[in-house]
């Protein structure tokens, strides 16, 4: 298999402004960004709660969340498919094969990632930040915010990590999205389809975009961390 030829075609596809390819890219970004927007506040709060509040069953819950980190996305997809199918319990919502279904799937996939990483970031925080805030008269919420700001780089890493996972996952998107052109075809499902059709140029073009976005996200993270990332 000649690798250069399809790669060359890939670049010309991308830069000739092929609308179909760019649509796929925007669908991918849209779905993953909305999912992260929804999941981040919930999961960060949950992670903080788990790290700071003792309650019965906490240990089991932490283990469960960490176990879910390795949950295969196809299993999430399958469960969600069964729930959203018209014969399933939420069938009347008509969500199967929509972007909303993909967003829900990605939320489920991202949630344990953000929770687990936030948890370990908060646990590793200097307890004096919290104590100082409280001694200066901060309420529970204000003190929590102080701690989270203290460990913001850890929390950001959690969010970016989760974004990386949902942005590149295929199993769930394929199952609940259905890979419909112009509606639910995102970068990973399109790569799988184009490869199955033997259209390697399109696959490579989309692979380049996937890598570029992943690199861009990490670059942005490093840039925003700036000197603060140094210890």
């Amino acid at each position, binding site marked *: 298999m000649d690798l250069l030829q399809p790669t060359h075609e890939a670049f010309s596809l991308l830069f000739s402004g092929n609308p179909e390819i760019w649509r796929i890219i925007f*669908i991918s970004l849209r779905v993953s960004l909305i999912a992260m927007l929804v999941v981040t506040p919930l999961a960060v709060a949950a992670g903080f709660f788990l790290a700071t509040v003792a309650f019965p069953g906490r240990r089991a819950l932490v283990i469960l969340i960490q176990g879910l980190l390795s949950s295969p996305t196809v299993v999430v997809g399958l469960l969600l498919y069964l729930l959203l199918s018209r014969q399933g319990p939420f069938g009347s919502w008509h969500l199967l094969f929509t972007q909303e279904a993909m967003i829900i799937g990605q939320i489920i996939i991202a949630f344990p990632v953000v929770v687990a990483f936030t948890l370990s970031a908060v646990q590793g925080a200097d307890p004096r930040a919290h104590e100082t805030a409280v001694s200066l008269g901060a309420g529970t919420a204000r003190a929590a915010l102080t701690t989270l700001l203290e460990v913001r780089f850890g929390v950001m890493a959690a969010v970016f990590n989760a974004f990386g996972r949902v942005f590149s996952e295929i199993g769930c998107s394929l199952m609940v999205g259905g890979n419909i052109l112009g*509606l639910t075809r995102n970068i990973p499902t399109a790569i799988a389809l184009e490869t199955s059709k033997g259209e390697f140029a399109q696959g490579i073009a989309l692979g380049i975009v996937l890598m570029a976005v992943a690199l861009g996200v990490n670059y942005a993270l490093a840039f925003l961390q700036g000197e603060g990332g140094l210890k």
Partner: protein
Amino acid sequence: MKRRLLKALIVFFVLCVTGWGANQATAAKDIRMSTTTSTENSGLLGYLLPVYEAKCSCKVRVISVGTGKALELGKNGDVDVVLVHARPSEDKFVAEGHGVNRSDVMYNDFILVGSQTDPLRLRGTKDVIAAFKILGEGKAKFISRGDNSGTDQMEKNYWKQAGVEPKGAWFISAGLGMGEVLTMAGELQAYTLSDRATYGAYRSKTGLDILVQGDPKMFNPYGVIAVNPKKYPDANYEGAMDFINWITSDEGQKRIAEFKVDGEQLFFPSAKKDN
């Protein structure tokens, strides 16, 4: 600089979320169709649907899977119309009340393809069952779709008639679509059963040759079925029927006949004129 980057990120974020990604909420008129991989992989739907979509000013949302899965989606009411090729399963689907108004649409045929070297010397034979008996001796690799698609069901049927239980290192159950299996057969220099349409679209990419063809047992008819509106009142029955009427109309049938890959016609219209 940092601020500007942050601002740019936020703007981009908002644009994406508010629909720069051109989210088209599925309009009520949209038709959801599950179909086999052959109609999509061969390029037929890409050729047919834009014409229909311009006419009905709606969108046909295509979910391209194996016939087994395509019917399953219809059974669950997750689509409005199915376009598949496995007559016994289709009849069962209608008999069980999942679908109504089954119509013939078109046909092509199955072919047995393999590498140009053809180690089993099947080239030019006409009896598919005899060929499967030879394949069953296990002297060369055979790739099976293994996904309960129409092609897979036909292949199982051939094994049964040949009295062979396909098992062993020579029998590769891929669990993939037709195009992927053809690509795999090209890479592994293996034999496989294909529909003529998908093979036509992949011939130059895989370098496989047609070895066995022309057996009446290899006839491959496609049917279109609307999902039963009594079972799923919120299915787009009207849209499904409109699509069925169009694809079986003179215009739709003519388009099917006109569709060619490398100058070769891949599907042959077969809708009955009287309906």
